Every structure is written in structure tokens, then in C-alpha cells.
């Protein structure tokens, strides 16, 4: 073959390479074999003619065929990239199908959540946690807590009894508050004490949208040397800001409880746009300095030690937090309710 005819053949091949369609894997393979195959590829075959050329022409012919082969390879590579990309997509994953979920979501009851929020704040302030029984005796539930013998809470109308009392003392009841846990803890150890007692308590109350025969409480107790009402206020205000937000309006108001003296209640201002005054004060917890009679009942010297105690319901702040208006909702456990927490 002469150089001219080689050139012509190369030019023709170049046209064929340019025109070849490379839209599928089959076409790619066909192209590779047809032009670049090791034995019978058309470009490969042309190289075999080079030795037959006059020596001075071989060099130019080699360069020409190399260029042609590079061009064909480049075209093949470019096509291979786009074809493989396209083919992966052709497999047809429907990305819009929902993800597999092995389970429904579970959840904690809103009372657990509110209780945890309250507990966590006090735990961060260095309080320990203690628990006690729900069946209590008169001494732990009332007498040691300085309830007078004829206090109305000792009455059948207010408290659920398991064993009747005799003239106001003795008897076994469902605890009316978690304060007996304070008594049990103080009896079992020596000051200092710094603890909260969460738990379920009972009252003899008709079941309505705002009352239930049981509810949950968190009580707190701190007894040490040098503990004052200022510490109490500081702790409670700190708690309320952590729970309701830094900008909450608070009111510390004198009150009365048999087991604390002086006593005070903490109110938070609840904004209600519809209300003529723009909101109202809501009582969230009762507190005070532990009554000397209580300390004496558990063998703590009230001259040496002072302390404070506080107690709050869990349901009420939970209702405020989540905008729940009927307390019974908590104990119905409707999935449509639980779903929201």
C-alpha cells in the first residue's frame, strides 16, 4: 500500500469513527472490536501496513494512525462514562418511596417528661433523688410532719384510708404527699440533706376535668447548718426560671403549711391574652422553712440545723406546658394523645 492510499483509508476510517453511534453498552463493545480490536480492529489493521511503506514515509504514517487511534479511544472513553452513568439510572430506583421503618415511634408519657424536666433542674443544682412507699402510716404522713390531730387532711373526706385511724391518730393510708419520704430519709441518716422526692400521691377527690384521685408530686428538702429562707427563694426562683424561661414573672407570697414555718408559695404570671388583666398568677409550689417540730420528730436539733422544704404537683405544670385542659386525659392513654409527645 502506498502512503496516499493509507492516508485515504485513514481519512475514511476517521469518518466512520466520527459517525459511529455509541449510545449503549452493546454499541460500545461493537465499536471497540470494530476499530480497536487487538487482531481485526480496523485501525489496528492499518498499523500492519506501515512496514510495507518506504522508510521515510513510515514516520508520518505512524503519527497519523496514532492520532486516529487516540481519537477513537477518547471517543470510546467519553461515551463509556456517559453510558455507565445513564445505565445506573436506568435501573430505576423510585427514590420517592417511603423509607423502611421497622417500628412505630415509641414515647414517654407526658407526665414522665414533665417530671424529668423538673427533676433534671434540681439534679443540676446538686439534689439527690429519693423515693418511698405509697401506702404510709399516720406517723410518717401526718404526725411527724406536725399535722395537728384534728387537721382536716386526717379526715376520711380528704384521705383514702386502708386502716382507720383512732381519734385522728394511727391508721394506714395512701400517702397524701411525698413528704413522708423526707421523714424516712432524715430518720435513716444525718444532716446535711439535700434531696427531692418524686412520686404518686392520692386524695379522696371526685374525678373531674380538674381533679383526679391521684397525681404526682416532687418535694424537696435541704437541711444543713446556715440554711435560710433566702436560700429557699434563690433555689425556687432559679428553678422557675429554668423551667418556665428566664423572663418569667415570679411572686413569693406568704402562706401556711403545718410542716413549714415561715411558709410561702411561689406564683408564676401566666399571660392570657383574653383575660381582662392580660393574665393571672398561677400557684405552682408551696414551700417554707422546715418546722422545728418536724426536725425534732426525726432527731435533728433545730437550734443547730435549719432547712427548707418545697413541694409541687407535676400535672399542673405539665398542663400549662402542653396546653392540656382536662387532667383525665393523662390517665386515658389514648394513642392519639400519646402520639403528640
Amino acid at each position: 500500500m502506498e502512503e496516499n492510499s493509507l492516508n485515504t483509508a485513514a481519512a475514511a476510517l476517521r469518518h466512520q469513527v466520527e459517525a459511529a453511534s455509541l449510545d449503549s453498552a452493546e454499541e460500545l463493545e461493537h465499536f471497540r472490536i470494530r476499530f480497536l480490536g487487538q487482531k481485526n480492529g480496523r485501525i489496528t489493521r492499518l498499523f500492519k501496513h506501515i512496514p510495507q511503506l518506504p522508510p521515510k514515509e513510515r514516520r508520518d504514517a505512524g503519527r497519523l494512525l496514532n492520532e486516529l487511534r487516540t481519537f477513537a479511544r477518547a471517543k470510546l472513553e467519553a461515551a463509556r462514562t456517559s453510558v455507565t452513568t445513564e445505565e445506573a439510572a436506568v435501573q430505576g430506583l423510585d427514590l420517592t418511596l417511603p423509607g423502611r421503618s421497622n417500628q412505630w415511634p415509641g414515647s414517654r408519657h407526658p407526665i414522665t417528661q414533665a417530671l424529668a424536666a423538673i427533676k433534671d433542674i434540681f439534679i443540676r443544682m446538686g439534689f439527690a433523688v429519693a423515693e418511698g412507699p405509697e401506702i404510709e402510716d399516720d406517723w410518717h404522713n401526718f404526725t411527724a410532719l406536725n399535722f395537728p390531730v384534728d387537721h382536716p387532711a386526717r379526715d376520711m373526706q380528704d384521705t383514702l384510708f386502708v386502716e382507720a385511724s383512732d381519734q385522728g391518730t394511727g391508721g394506714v393510708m395512701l400517702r397524701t404527699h411525698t413528704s413522708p419520704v423526707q421523714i424516712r430519709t432524715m430518720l435513716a441518716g444525718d444532716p446535711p440533706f439535700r434531696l427531692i422526692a418524686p412520686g404518686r400521691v392520692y386524695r379522696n377527690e371526685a374525678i373531674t376535668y380538674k381533679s383526679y384521685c391521684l397525681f404526682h408530686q416532687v418535694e424537696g428538702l435541704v437541711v444543713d447548718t446556715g440554711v435560710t429562707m433566702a436560700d429557699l427563694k434563690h433555689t425556687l426562683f432559679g428553678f422557675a426560671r429554668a423551667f418556665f424561661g428566664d423572663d418569667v414573672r415570679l411572686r413569693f407570697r406568704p402562706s401556711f403549711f403545718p410542716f413549714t414555718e415561715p411558709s410561702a408559695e411561689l406564683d408564676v404570671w401566666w399571660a392570657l391574652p383574653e383575660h381582662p388583666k392580660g393574665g393571672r398568677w398561677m400557684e405552682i409550689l408551696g414551700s417554707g422553712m422546715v418546722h422545728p417540730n418536724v426536725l425534732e420528730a426525726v432527731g435533728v436539733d433545730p437550734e443547730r440545723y435549719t432547712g427548707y422544704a418545697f413541694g409541687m404537683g407535676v400535672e399542673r405544670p405539665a398542663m400549662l406546658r402542653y396546653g392540656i385542659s382536662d387532667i383525665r386525659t393523662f390517665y386515658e392513654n389514648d394513642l392519639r394523645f400519646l402520639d403528640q409527645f
Partner: protein
Amino acid sequence: MKISLNWLQEYVDISMSTAELEEQLTLSGLEVEDVTSIGPSVDGVVVGHVLDVQPHPNADRLTVCRVEVGSDAPAQIVCGAPNVRAGQHVPVALPGCSLSINGKSVKIKTAKLRGVKSAGMICAEDELGLSDDHSGIMVLEGRAVPGEPLADYLRRVGSGVGDMTFDVVITPNRPDAACHIGVARDIAAVTRTALHLPTCPLPEDSEAIRIQLSVSIECTQLCRRYAAMLVRGVRVGESPQWLQQRLIAVGLRPINNIVDITNFVMYECGQPLHAFDYDRIAGGEIMVRASKGGEQFATLDGKQHTLPADTVLICDRQQPVALGGIMGGANSEVDKSTTTVLIESAWFDPSATRRTARRLGIQTDASYRFERGVDASGQVRAAVRAALLMAELSGGQIVEGCIDVHPNPLVLPAVTLRLSRIPVILGITIPAEEVVRILNALGFGVRRAGDSLRCQVPPHRPDVSLEVDLIEEVARIYGLDQIGEPHPSAVPGSVPLERPIDTRRESVHVLLNGRGYREIYTNSLVEKDVAEQFSDPSLGTGYPVVETLNPVSTSMTTLRPTLLPGLLKVMQFNTHHGQSPLRFYEFGHVFHRTAEQAVYIDGYAEYETLIMGISGPIRPKAWDDKDRDADFFDLKGDIEHLLAAFGLSDVRVQYHNQSEAITACQMTLFYHKHRLGCIAQLHPDLQRQWDLRSPAYFAEFNWTRLVLHAEENSRRKFTPVNRHPAADRDIAVVLPSSQSAGPLLETIRNVGAPLLQDVRVFDLYEDPRLGSRKKSLAFALRFGARRTLRDREIDRKVGQVVKALHELYGAELRS
């Protein structure tokens, strides 16, 4: 208790606004729950002075008035009333205010009436809601200042219109605050103003009354003092307006002048009084005694009572005439024909009064006050106050003298307050002079000696007996808002440890929430039948249940012996409401009676359990997953996961394939000798009884015990990771269908030791081609050691395992 602002102002000068007073009372310990305005609203209505009156140019019946209303220029107002005259003081509704006229709200605007501008309205009484009078405009008598709010004018002239009522919460330690003088005393102490008490000249001793009346007290503990006075020639009739308005303001219904006066005095000074018709008191004789029990008595509200023992009875010569401290009798009641009134002013024991009132189910204004403790020094003063008013308002004549029997005077203590103790309790220092001033203002007699204040408790404060009580009195008047905040607080001396029961509970929440369980809270009180039905030995209980003596309702009589009925109720409720999935858990206390030594209260066992329950679909319907109902092994798997998380590997199990009262089948878990709990399928009868559509499974564990044993196992030591490769071998065997898998696993573990590291069941199937009543079980075995194992030794081990399975269970290796 309701307190009237107008009434209060008789005893103390109040310069603050209603809102400030509300706040002040609350912050000094008398929480105001509600403030209501009494009578019509006259907001925006002011006093006007009519300067001149001209005829209207376009209307015969109208006049054009120039009225001074306090501001800049006089207002021009068109008026249609015939009685308007220059020089009058009249109520003027200014533009912008709203009046309720004939039941309709009318907004007053500046308008043109027949072409003449009118800026406001001169009002008739009916337009202000003060009366039905529409005969002409209201003319204000007495001192009236143009521009002052009409409400202030009305209050000043004591019209009773425009009063405010404060609903005050009286805590049990404030018996003194159940009257207007008591509340006024607090206000005077806070605002450093004087308290004005009504003058009551104490009567001269006189034979006159003793001739007509004798009083004796038998039960001197229950009735420490009995004072009595007589008023003759009274005319029983309506009380004057001012008295009626006072009573209406505090929520009382005026009855007649005599009864109204006793109520008035009670709300003034806190001493309950009773008025008898003297002519109906047999023998002119009053005797106070305790009832024997079982006596009958008709109170003046027309009700008949059988009296418990130790009820205080006020008797005449023949019969009881009143329940002391609670209510008078129908037989001695004052009525229209009464001419002589016997005023009783006594002191009855708080506890006894409370007991009787509760037993009889009668709560009265009198019992409310006696229960809290009334001023034991105030009986004569109150009787005189009432007698004087009766003389004045009913035309009666006071019989000279006063009977005052007090055989057993109440002596109140003197209490020492150390000034140095105030900062110890309150955390703030209050100047000594301020402490003394506050105590004096509250009625305490104070003698200072160095650091100590010797404080004589006044008779109106029987609740005060300790130093801290005095500190509380000082603190509430000084103001808790004087305690600075934030207050420097020390870090506690020791950091409390986390309790395992709390951290473990937390991990259960995380684990179960991730597995689709929702936490529930159920009532601890259930029906007795239900409690007894579920008190079953198969559930680890089966002891006598604990009932309450006074249940809230018949459906809540008994404490739950297990959380199971609560769980089933929630499953039932959600089934009824078409809700799923049913996957729940709860932590809660369970209860039963016990003869064994109790942890807390003898006779009662109480501990916390954790229950889990599932029923119905195992997971949400999905596009590439087959629906399936949850079964025993789903729950078992969750429990295995939980036990693994707790490091409890040493759990012994008892399987039970027979049905029991509550369960269709169950496995019970033990840790050493202790029962931890069980996993079970609910009995199909119960499943139907609770309306559950699919089989239900539950697991309940003694939570306290679970945590205890988990803690025993919690100290794990690190084992170095084995770098040598492990070798896996699978074997499949055919064996009788009835043969359970558990023992085979046990055998494989025993024989495979020590090289065998793990074994799992990875396939189970039954097929007729295996032979009748045969099944195939496949096990995946993993071998390893701290060296590289040779194939030969593994093959030998596998051979030993296969041989043992064959010998012990007739298992044939599948080829």
C-alpha cells in the same frame, strides 16, 4: 372569705388603689383570689356642676346646659329632663364611656341634637343602673366635686354603690383575719397607719340582768366563756339600707335587723353571736353541757339531727336550744313577734367544733370561726356592740349589765424572739425597731431585753406559740420581696450519687421507645373483682388484696396487685377507638397484703414493677414487607435485649405450656432463687373479655429486683480482643417435632466448650418430605481460641456435637 372595701375603710385609711391593695394583701399573707365590683358600673361618669340652663332653639322639651366637669371649659350638654336647674350637681356621662340602658350597651358620643352640639349626657338613676327612677336626672346631694368620678362620690356618701369585694383566702394560722378588723390590722401594719376600732363602752355590773337570766357552764373545756346580754322591746323588721348593703357586699342575705346585727358584728370583729328569743328560753336559764349521744335536735334551718356524744349543747331549763358554735335551734329562733333578745357571745373549743360540724355535715359562718379559734377576750365587747346596735336600729332598750361566765380562761403564752435568730431563718437582717413596730402593730406586747424580745401573744392570735411563728409574722409584714435574689449560695458539700434505679429506668425508656413502645400511666385503684381476678400465683402474686375503706367510687376500691389490668384497659380503650399499634409499657407500684416482714408498713407488700404489652400488627404496613401479628417471640426478643442491656446473663427460665387463669402459656424468669418476672400470652378468654382483636402478650418484672441484680452484674472487666480468626460452621439436624430447641442449644454449648464461642438457631422448618412429625433445626456455630485453630480440631468438635445431638435427642444430621 369576702371583705368589703367600704367596710374596711371604717377601720383603716386606705389611700392605695384597688389593684395595689389586692397586691398588698396577697403579699402579706392574705391571698386575694378574686376582686369583684358591686353594683352598677359607673366608669367614665363624673360629677358635673350645672352652670346655667337655656331653652333649646329648636325643641320645646329640651334645654341646653353649660356644665362644669372638672376639665378646661364647661361642657355644653343638651338635656331633656324637666328637673334640671342651674346650680345642681349631677352625674355626667362623658363622651367615650358606655352605659347599660334598658339592658343595652350605649356608647356616649358628642352629637348634634336638633342642630345643637351636645358633649355628653346628664343621667337619670335608671340610666346608671342605680334604680328604676326615670322621672328626672339624678341630683347629687352633699359635697360633690365637679370632675370627680361618680364612683368615688357614691362611695364617699356611703351609698353602698360602687363597693369592691375582695375574696380572701384565710390560711388556718390566721383566725384573726376572718373579719374586717383583722384584715384592717394587717393593712395598718403594712402601711404604717392607725387602726380605728369602734368604741364599745363596757357595761357596768348590774343586778338587772341577773334577775332575768342565769348562765352556767358544765363542760368548761368545750366552752371556756359565755357572755350574754338582753335587749328589751325590740321591733323585729328590715335593717336599714347601710346595714343590708354591708351584708350583701360580703355575700350574706339580709334577714331581719336582729339577725343582721349579729352577722354584722361577726364580720366586723370575728366573734360569732347568736340571738335567742328570750321569751322562748324556759326559766330564763342557760346551761352549757356536752351531749350524751343520740339526742335529737332541730336546727333553725329546719333540719333534724341525731347528735353525737360531746356536742356542745346550749340548754334552757327544759331542753337544748342551740348547738354551741354551730347553729341555733328552731325552738328559740328570733321572729317577727320577738320583743326581748338574748345575745349569746361565747367561746367554743376549736377541735370540738370542727368534729361536730364534720359529723353533722353542717358548716356555718360561726363554726368556720370557732374551728380556727376566736379571740377569747372579745366576747363582752362583741355582745355590747350588738346590743348597742339593736337598741339603735330596733328601738330596743338594753337591760343593764352583762353576764360573763368564764370559769376556765384561756391563757396565751409570752414567746421569746431572739433578734439574732431572724437572719438565721430568713437570711436577711431586719432592724430591731422595725421588728418591734411590726409586732406591736399586730397586737403583740413586746418587751426588749438585749437580743431578746419577750412577746405577749394577743388573744386574737391563739395560733402563735413558737419563735418561728413570730419570725413568720415579722417576715410577712416586712415583705418576702425584701429577701434579695439571687442570693449567694454555697455549692453542696457532697455531690449526690446517681441512683441505679433512675439510670436503669432511663435506659429502659430509651430501649423501649426505640422499639415502638409507648409509656402509659394508669390508675393504681381498680375494682375489687378485677384486683382479685388478677391476684394470681401464675403472675407471682396471689395474695390478699389491699382495699381502701372510703373509695372514691366502686370502680376504684382496691390497689392493683399487678399492672396488668391497667394495661389491658388501655389496650381495650384504644381498640374501641380504632387505634393501633398496641405496644405499651408502664412503671408503677403494685400492692398486696403480707404476713411477712414488710419493708415499709407492716402487713403490706409494695414494690415497683415494669410491664410491657403487645398485640396486633408487628410493624407499620410497608410496601415491601409482609403484615404479621406480633407473637410471643417478638416480646421475648425485646426482653432478651433488655436483659442483655442489663448484663443479666445468668437468668434461669421455667417454661409452662399449660393455660392458667390469666395466661395461655408463659415463661418465668428467675435470678438465682428470686423470681424476676414472666413473659406470657394472655388467656384467649381474657383477650375476648377485653375486646382485643389479636392475641395479646405481656411481660411484667419486679423492677426493684431487676435493678438490684443488674447492679450485682454491672462491674464488668475488659477481656482483650482475640486477634486470631474465628471459624464458622453450620449444622442442620432433623428431629421429632415435639423436641424443643432449648435443650439442644444447651447441649451444643456444653459439648462445644471451650472452643465454641457462640451458637444461634438460624433456621427452623417443618416439611412432610422430612418425614411425619419431624422438623429441621439449623445452628450456626462459631469457634475460636487464643491461637489459630486447625480445621481438624474444629471438625472433631463438630463431630462430637453431632454425635451428642444424635444420642440425646435422636437428631439426624441433614446431608
